[in-house]
């Protein structure tokens, strides 16, 4: 389901996955509008060993996936009224996350990964239920992925940006869980997942 557009892209993704190592998740965030040159240099100095850039590229891949997912799902017209009102901003948020994470990587001197070629499993967009259930799964995955990266980020600025995105993903996750009759508050403290676990979760979707 999650296919990289070329062998090269996939290799790059795995390369930074290897750099980040055990922990992982995504973390993305953005230093919202671009930081000044001085700030960028300071952040670069803090983000040693390309670790933070690797984490940002990981986050970017996941945000691309989420953004594409909502754009595709919302086009199907399954939702209306309050559900449509609640899901539409989520798609906007993911789009903004992609933009901000991309510009952050570029500003820090890194190379943003290309948007992956995404192939959704059959049935993903067959109905409101399948769309929202998959959305809920993606959001919970995203939350745990971001929280897995929190202790790994070197730059406090990138940490702040990543956390500010993680909180939004938590809101999304709660609302979606409520919509599909799930539990909006599955844990008193958000769980976290390593990059290895996240990759394992999406691997069946990568051909």
């Amino acid at each position, binding site marked *: 389901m999650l296919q990289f557009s070329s062998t090269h892209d996939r290799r790059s993704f795995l390369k930074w996955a290897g750099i980040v190592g055990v922990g992982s998740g995504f973390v993305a965030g953005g230093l919202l509008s*671009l930081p000044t040159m001085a700030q960028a240099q300071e952040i670069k100095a803090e983000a040693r060993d390309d670790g933070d850039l690797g984490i940002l590229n990981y986050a970017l891949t996941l945000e691309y996936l989420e953004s594409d997912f909502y754009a595709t799902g919302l086009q199907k017209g399954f939702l209306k009224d309050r559900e449509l009102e609640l899901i539409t901003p989520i798609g906007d948020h993911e789009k903004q996350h992609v933009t901000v994470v991309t510009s952050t990587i570029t500003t820090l001197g890194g190379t943003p990964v290309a948007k992956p070629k995404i192939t959704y499993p059959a049935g993903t967009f067959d109905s409101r239920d399948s769309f929202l259930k998959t959305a809920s799964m993606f959001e919970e995955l995203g939350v745990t992925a971001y929280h897995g990266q929190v202790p790994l980020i070197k730059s406090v600025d990138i940490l702040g940006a990543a956390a500010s995105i993680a909180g939004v993903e938590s809101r999304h996750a709660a*609302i979606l869980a409520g919509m599909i009759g799930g539990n909006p508050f599955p844990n008193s403290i958000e769980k976290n997942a390593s990059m290895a676990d996240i990759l394992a979760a999406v691997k069946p979707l990568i051909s």
Partner: protein
Amino acid sequence: MSRRDFVRGELNDISPAQALSALNSRWALAAPGDFATDIDVLNYALTLEYLEAAFYIQGNQAGLLSGTEQAYLAKIQADEEFHVTAITQTIQQLGGTPVEKPGVMFGDAFDTRLKYLTTSVTFENVGVGAYLGAAGFIKDKTILQAAAGIFGVEARHAAIVGNLLGLPAEGGVYKGAFETPMAKADVLAAASPFLASQMGAVPAGAADTGGGSAAAKDESGLYALGGAALLGAAGAAVYAARRNGRAEDEVAQ
């Protein structure tokens, strides 16, 4: 609009662009010196969690809710009580002294369902901003991860209660694509009407340069804890030991 106005202002009126701008100014961290140590941050969080827990205990006893709403608010109460216990244990494990439970007064917040839930949303969003604003001060990566984990749950609470109230999706249920941090002074100003006894017990703390250098300093093996980092007693013991080890390293230097 100054950053101060931004954090004091009506958050519903903040555009994503403004949020980005505020975050870019080093995400509006609390002023340097707000928190000298991780224990300071934890005591700050503990006071807020005490306030929230007391709020839900009283509110849920008022019998204003039923069905799913009642179940949701009961779970939120349980989450806040868990946060109080976990943070208290963590402070103790670190050798610190947890602040006393503050005296609280919620006025007419429990007169109606509408007032209860509206006050709840306010508390939750202040909690979200407070954790995000303080995150950069936390030096210990394990405590940071746990605090971030609590922050995310407060965001869930805020979204769900906002939705129960039927607030607009954007600006009510969600606060844009990025959460907005709040400085300590603004959080205390927002919480003070509900505190019968003030937060004077929170150590003022000496100046610290903020989270940047502190976080960069922490190169210990804490990363190895990875996902295990919860604030529970077991995890607290582990990182207290690591923290002590690091303190010795610093002395040795």
